[in-house]
């Protein structure tokens, strides 16, 4: 019996897929959403356990998740099993791909920091004097940012600075600054740096996911079906028109293959999975840039200082606690003459402790040091922007398949002088400010994690006005296949220093409204 043809097939149910479903169904468009993973009820799926009651005493099972630095024995089951769905890379160029496969995807677990990109990112080529800009500017995305901020209930402090655009914020109660946060704020301000505060999605009932903020509205229309455990293997096209007409998917449990028909296909499987699916389908790559310009953010640089007046376990009231956020302050003007382009944000947190590795001690002597500095430390860490480069790419490795026989990705990404120089500048700058505050540096490192670690991987399916140098147009629509859209982070042209989710959501909303209008006008 022939099955229903859906208006739109949405592949992936995380933030971007959820946003697409929410927008499209509320405009009367029938959607089928396929997700590769099972459904999970977070209220029931987590139980309190002591580490000694786990088989490996809180250590992760050795060798289970070699690329997921974030994994431990408590959360090991929330990540994609690297043996079930492997990927490959040159051992000399590690890439830490951190994945989740559940209905709701990584939106179930994200850190919720919610910043807008600015025109220093959208218009990067002009600011940097090299590379490419986005085909859109902040003004194009502004209304969609605002609507997204309302749904996610983003709180923040307005600053009135174009390089750190304000949003549609709930009032945030940061409380009074501790004296150490005041001190570092004064020092940073004296150097001409803007000092602000975290902007975060509050969500509802302790969650800010696709599952609780986006999909319920879509389901309420009666226009959405969500099928879990459906792994899309290949998008199919009509031979006569060249348009997408559906997809093959594999049942996660039985491995039975089925086909579904749709008038439009929206990919929202996550940056690298959407790119993998397009590459495996042999689609959308007349430009030859599909898989290329894969970017993410530079994390790991850290400077820790100890506040002399707060040592010894007797922190004076009001001295420690809270954070200061320094939005990007480098290369805001052209011609600053630095040995790197782009910039980084910096977070300075007050009130932590020292790590054992900061001292050449052990046993009781080490414990005395740890006790001395407990609660007395200031920690600076950065959110750095990596440079998009054609040679940093993912391609299909035909020799390796996942548990469902689908060819996997080979990821080939290297850092360059720009990343190393930026990291050094960040560590030096944090150290200089902390010394100026009269604090003692306990540890300084300009090392950073391999690419992928930030879980902010974007690009590889970038947008642009020129079909010869980009995969998508400015509406997230494939240049090559007009009824196919990619609405996840794959479309990013530059990654910015800012956490990527809010921009992904706003772009997915904008693309979906455009798609709905085009379908209504019968242009698609």
């Amino acid at each position, binding site marked *: 019996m022939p099955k229903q043809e859906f208006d739109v097939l949405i592949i992936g149910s995380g933030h971007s897929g959820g946003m697409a479903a929410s927008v499209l169904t509320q405009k009367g468009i029938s959607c089928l959403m396929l997700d590769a*993973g099972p459904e999970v009820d977070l209220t029931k*799926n987590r139980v309190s*356990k002591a580490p000694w009651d786990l088989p490996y005493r809180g*250590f992760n099972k050795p060798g289970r998740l070699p690329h997921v630095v974030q994994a431990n024995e408590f959360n090991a089951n929330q990540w994609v099993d690297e043996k079930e769905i492997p990927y490959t890379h040159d051992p000399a160029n590690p890439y830490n791909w951190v994945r989740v496969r559940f209905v709701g995807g990584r939106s179930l677990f994200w850190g919720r920091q919610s910043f807008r990109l600015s025109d220093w990112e959208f218009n990067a080529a002009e600011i940097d004097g090299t590379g490419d800009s986005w085909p859109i500017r902040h003004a194009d995305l502004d209304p969609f940012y605002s609507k997204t901020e309302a749904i996610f209930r983003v709180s923040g402090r307005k600053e009135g600075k174009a390089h750190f655009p304000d949003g549609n914020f709930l009032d945030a109660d940061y409380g009074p600054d501790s004296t150490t946060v005041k001190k570092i704020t004064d020092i940073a301000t004296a150097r001409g740096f803007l000092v602000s505060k975290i902007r975060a999605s509050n969500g509802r009932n302790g969650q800010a996911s696709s599952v609780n903020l986006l999909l319920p509205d879509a389901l309420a229309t009666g226009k959405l079906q969500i099928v879990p455990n459906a792994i899309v293997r290949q998008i199919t096209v009509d031979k006569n028109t060249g348009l997408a007409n559906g997809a093959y998917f594999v049942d996660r449990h039985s491995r039975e293959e089925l086909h579904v028909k749709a008038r439009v296909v929206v990919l929202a499987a996550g940056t690298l999975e959407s790119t993998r699916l397009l590459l495996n389908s042999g689609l959308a790559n007349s430009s030859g840039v599909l898989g290329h310009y894969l970017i993410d953010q530079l994390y790991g640089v850290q400077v820790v200082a100890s506040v002399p007046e707060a040592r010894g376990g007797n922190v004076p009231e009001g001295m420690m606690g809270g954070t200061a956020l320094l939005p990007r302050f480098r290369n805001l003007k052209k011609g600053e003459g630095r040995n790197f382009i782009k910039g980084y944000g910096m977070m300075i947190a007050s009130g932590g402790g020292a790590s*054992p590795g*900061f001292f050449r001690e*052990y*046993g009781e002597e080490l414990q005395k040091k740890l006790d001395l500095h407990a609660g007395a430390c200031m920690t600076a860490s950065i959110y750095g922007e990596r440079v998009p480069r054609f040679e940093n790419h993912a391609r299909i490795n035909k020799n390796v398949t996942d548990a469902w026989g689908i060819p996997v990705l080979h990821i080939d990404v290297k850092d360059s002088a720009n990343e190393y120089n930026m990291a050094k500048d960040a560590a030096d700058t944090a150290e200089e400010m902390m010394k100026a505050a009269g604090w003692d540096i306990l540890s300084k490192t300009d090392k950073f994690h391999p690419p992928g670690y930030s879980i902010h991987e974007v690009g590889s399916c970038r947008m642009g006005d020129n079909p010869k140098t980009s995969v998508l147009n400015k509406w997230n629509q494939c240049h090559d296949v007009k009824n196919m859209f990619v609405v996840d982070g794959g479309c990013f042209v530059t990654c910015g220093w800012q956490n990527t989710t809010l921009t992904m959501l706003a772009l997915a909303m904008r693309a979906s409204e455009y798609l709905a209008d085009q379908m209504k006008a019968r242009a698609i």
Partner: protein
Amino acid sequence: MRTMAAAPAVPAALVLEQATQAQTPAARPAGQPIANGKRDAVGEPVAHFFTAPQLAALRRLSDLLMPPMKGEPGALDAGVPEFLDFLIGQSPADRKQLYRSGLDMLNAHAAKQFGKPFAELDAKQADAIVRPLLVLVPWSFELPKEPGARFLAAAHDDIRTATRNSREVSAAAVAAGRRPLGAQLYFLPVDPIYKG
């Protein structure tokens, strides 16, 4: 068997009566598990992986780096050397090799400098071997390159974590009226692939 064999000085009728009474089961609160024991509370760990000289050196190192402090159990009380024998024995080859050669190195240094195994060194002698291997590890995600320092940094971290995460340290904290450390939310497996 011995008690069974000894003839009970109780009339058979009375035995039957007791048996009948015993058929009324004790009330058990709903949802309370019937298995109330813990493996590590009843069983002795059996070391399989390290050689006897390696394990002896690991015991000495564990006690040196994480001794009992402020009334809290140390690494030996927490069974850390035996746990690490299990953990490292399950680990990838490079981790196994790091530990084996590191412990052999401690014994070799001890033999050369003091003419006895590392396990038999006093605190001052052990310090003379361990101190030069201690380097700053500002970035915990990357161990030092030099093999001796690399081993010591890895072992130091593992010994500290295995001690902190032990039942013994937590029980001592509870006994001292402090909150036990370590309980976290464990994410259960979700719908594992059907295997038939």
